[in-house]
């Protein structure tokens, strides 16, 4: 049975509840489902079905990367919570991007690139 066959009810459900998705093949034949669900409920339905098919999520043959439409509208931003000892260069290195990119995306909450404080939530362009 192909991986697509194994998870066909999950994909059917996605089509029914308005989730748009794309399939690709990851490591060792892993089925990678990347998509956007119209609501948190729709996304939860997909996860419930995944759990029904593989109760411990241990098959190692599926990646279900579904975000909700609201999250998608955020523009693929990731949030990093500043910790004690962080600076923009260090955070940027962690994500493999330039510090200036973080600075540019957070001018609204930062006054100076050297002044960030623990607990601040920085938008990280990925």
């Amino acid at each position: 049975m192909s991986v697509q066959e194994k998870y066909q009810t999950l994909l059917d459900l996605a089509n029914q509840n308005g989730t748009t998705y794309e399939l690709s093949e990851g490591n060792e034949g892993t089925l990678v489902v990347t998509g956007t669900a119209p609501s948190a409920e729709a996304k939860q339905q997909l996860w419930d079905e995944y759990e029904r098919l593989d109760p411990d999520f241990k098959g190692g043959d599926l990646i279900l990367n579904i975000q909700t439409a609201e999250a998608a509208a955020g523009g693929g931003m990731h949030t990093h919570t500043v910790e004690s000892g962080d600076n923009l260069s260090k955070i940027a290195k962690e994500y493999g991007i330039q510090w200036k990119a973080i600075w540019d995306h957070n001018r609204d909450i930062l006054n100076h690139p050297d002044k960030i404080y623990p607990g601040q939530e920085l938008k990280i362009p990925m």
Partner: protein
Amino acid sequence: MKIKFLTIISIAAVMFMAACGKSDADLQKAVQDKLTADNVTGVTVAVKDGVATLTGEVADITVKNKAAASARGVEGIKSVTDSTTTKPLPVATPQAADPALTGKIMENLKKEGCTTVTVSVVNGKMTATGEVPDASFAKCVRVINEAGGTGFDNQLTRRK
């Protein structure tokens, strides 16, 4: 009793005649129209003696299943031979390099309170170890799924 029997016979006869009434060419068109109406693309239909054979390459398994179901639903089609194939999938690329991906996952896990999970990433394949409270098991698994890796070896255990 006799009336009931006659009714069944006549219904059967009508259905039989209706089935025979359509030529293979009519059926082929009917199936093709039905597929178009159901937004199934990429499927070619051939009908011989009421048996529909579907060929072509479709986007994924859901389209394949839908095509076969649609064809079966067409009146006069006796059976469907599904010879469609699903399109080979493009190769998934990790959303970030391994160290960046690891950093992102660990950060997201921490934010969701999955502090007992350790993740390592090699060529986009994420391996997660650690013991997680039963109640947050699914949540932690989800965080890792949504990180943008291309493989997932889930070795997490549940703490009951």
